[in-house]
């Protein structure tokens, strides 16, 4: 047991170290310098001295290895540093944005998992029926549509045309709601991005569930249960679905780790202030500190989700319990 824990621990530590190195290296390997974003549009009117001064201000004049040492040192002290572009502490920006992303992507993941499991189970149970084929067809459709396109259609139909939902944002800009008014306003703004994200996530879950169910339904114990006269509904819920859940749980845990990376495309289309958009904008602006920090946070949460999965598996499936 302890050997196992130590082994896993060492593995995760190694992944973490590699990430720290890649986080530093990858943004700097992109073509283009952050100069234009540090200097703004007047970059052309700087003298070489001013340019050098500006680089020095951000420590970009230092050799790469020294920048790396500084970065690791700050990270060890829990300091994420300042955004080049926003001039604000990154910790503060992330704290502001994280709740939006968790609300959108987290809720969507939970919803999509429930829907995927339910639809996948029914689909497999009624394999070959019109219901199964219809569900599969619809799932394939949503699996293959680009999320920005789906988002645009939702905006055009449900927001612009029917006026049921707002077109953009996470709340009415500049309005100060309180209590229920606030919750309703937030929910109205959340509806369309949540629907978009959920609809494109469901098919993956559904297909995994359906496949796992088909496997389980062919097992001897299902036949045994039926032979014993167990009611169909009970066979479905107790005997089949429970045993087919394991792959879904795996995918769920994997996705859970990536929740903090946000949903860049959906967040951009709906002007939702999540971490995915922050990351995307940081790439565009060569905002190295923000890139390093957000990638680091994503890695840590993916590792944490993996650890959680390792710990939860034995509870879900007694077969993987170890001594």
């Amino acid at each position, binding site marked *: 047991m302890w050997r196992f824990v130590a082994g896993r621990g060492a593995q995760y530590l190694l992944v973490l170290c590699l990430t720290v190195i890649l986080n530093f290296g990858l943004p700097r390997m992109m*073509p*283009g*310098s952050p*100069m*234009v974003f540090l200097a*703004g*549009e*007047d970059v*052309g*009117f*700087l*003298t*070489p001295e*001013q*340019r050098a001064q*500006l680089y020095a*201000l951000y420590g970009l004049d230092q050799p790469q290895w020294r920048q790396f040492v500084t970065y690791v040192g700050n990270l060890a002290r829990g300091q994420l540093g*300042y955004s080049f*572009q*926003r*001039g*604000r502490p990154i910790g503060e*920006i992330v704290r*502001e*944005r994280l*709740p*939006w992303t*968790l*609300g959108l992507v987290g*809720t969507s993941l*939970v919803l999509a998992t*429930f829907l995927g499991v339910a639809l996948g189970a029914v689909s497999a149970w009624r394999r070959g029926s019109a219901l199964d084929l219809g569900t599969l067809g619809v799932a394939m459709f949503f699996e293959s549509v680009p999320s920005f396109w789906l988002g*645009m259609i939702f*905006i055009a139909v449900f927001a*612009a045309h029917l*006026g049921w939902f*707002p*077109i*953009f*944002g*996470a*709340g009415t*800009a*500049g*309005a*100060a*709601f309180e209590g229920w008014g*606030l*919750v309703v306003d*937030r*929910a109205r703004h*959340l509806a369309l991005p949540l629907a978009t994200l959920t609809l494109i996530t469901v098919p993956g879950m559904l297909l995994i569930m359906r496949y796992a169910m088909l496997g389980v339904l062919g097992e001897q114990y299902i036949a045994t249960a039926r032979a014993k006269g167990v009611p169909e509904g009970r066979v479905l819920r107790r005997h089949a679905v429970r045993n087919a859940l394991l792959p879904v749980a795996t995918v769920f845990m994997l996705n859970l780790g990536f929740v903090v990376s946000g949903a860049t495309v959906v967040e*951009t*289309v*709906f*002007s939702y*202030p999540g971490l995915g*958009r922050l990351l995307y*904008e940081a790439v565009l602006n*060569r905002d190295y500190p923000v890139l390093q920090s957000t990638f680091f946070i994503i890695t840590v949460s993916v590792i944490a989700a993996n650890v959680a999965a390792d710990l939860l598996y034995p509870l879900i499936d007694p077969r993987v319990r170890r001594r």
Partner: protein
Amino acid sequence: MRRGVGLLLVCALAMGGAPPAAGQPTSQPSALRMAITRDEGALNPYTYQTGYPGWNLMTLIYEPLFTPDADNIPQPWLVRQYTVSQDGRTWTFALHPNIRWHDGRPFTADDVRFTYEYVRRNPHSRWTGQVRTIESIETSGPTGLTIRLNAPSSGFAAQPLADLPILPRHIWENVANPRQFNDVVGSGPYRLAEMRDGQFYRLVANDQYFAGRPKVRELVLPIIRDATVTFTALRAGEIDTTVRPLAPEVVAEFERAAGMRVARGAGYASTILQFNAEHPVLREPKLRVAIANAINTRLMVRLLLLGYGVVGSPGYIHPSSPFYNPAVTFTASKSRAVQLLNELNYVDRNGDGIRDLPDGAALRFTLLTLAGNPVRIRGADLIRSWLRDVGIDVRVVAQEDASIIAQVWPDFDVCKGRRFDMAVFGWSAPVMNRTTALRDLFHSDCRQGTINIGGYRNPALDRLGADLAAAVDPARQKQILFEMQKIVAADLPVHTLFYQDGIYAYRPDRHAAWVYQKGQGIVNKLSFIDPPRR
């Protein structure tokens, strides 16, 4: 389990941002909603991001001494009276007496002196260079100010006077790293009431403003990243206007739409065919003129901009600019192009349809263009086909911005040279507004011609550039600029293709007093407040 989902949802909704702090008045239904495209930092002079509209919005909060009028001529604003000495080196100002900072402290000449010295010490890409010519600044009393320059400077009224916003000394004097300082106490007609990263800014009118009450009580600036969504929101009435210009394809639709109005005016941003004047073949002016003759810029404006634009002037300066030389004209002619190429003895020697240089190499160039910009890509393709018609082979290479810059303008430092043949490039509106634009664009010394990305050299133009920089009298400036445009038109270090018009849609029932500032657009101080009475 289902209850779990509901709970998660409510938690998420509740967590996403606290209600505004107590004491801040909340948004009114009368608020004017103007969508912007990205974050602009804390909207103070060291953190705003874009030249347009960032600078324009920031100067609603922090004000320069002068303000450009609708024709972009700098006019005194915080200044009640001013005089310039005969030699152009001494500027004396009397400030308006009743200006206050948003925190109630009086605005004085000492704040101005502090600011001009502050940007000298704390490098700012826009202003540090502008205050370089200042020799000394003296104050006399709270409203008196004298600035002495070490040489007369032609652009001084425009930059820094109408460009550099004044900082409150009592807040900034101990700020060592302004790029990480997010205070927003200014003196302008609006103050920042609320700011949400990635969501919106909210500005409210400053009722104590010295020049009177602003026309709009409250400005809400939501950040909408996607262009289609922005215009959908505008059509649906969820926003009242946007800083995004309308694409030519949708102008007619917005002009017809009920409750919408479209403001259209000259755009000073240029689209140019940039030559590498150090290229062994393209350094020949006659070849550049031949290439220009093969390009039908009139047709480009019709095809690419659907007519919403102005054909490029060969002297670079936009025909709407007060400095435009109308005597400088260019009419493209394919036969003239062929004639010039023949005169240069560039003829097809091997029968492949491509002209060859005297040494046998084919007349072949690479044309760089920006991948994310459909207008430029289609423009580059038109140029390719027109040049092919006269026997010049052009390969169009579309790349993302950073890669283009790495070849055309490495490290944004023209002293570092260049490695390209030709590029479809462009400059933003502020370049046109700089009095010294033609020196900056074409002076051979890379420290003066800081955006001479083609490495063009012409001693006559250099001399005129030096004269221009020292000319204070507008009539004299105009005279020099006329000469410079003649040289540029004859040599064509760049071939100016066109200037796209600025076209903006808004809902007139929400706010109709928009002022179109020439070359730039409707987002400027004049749209929100009338100039102070002297």
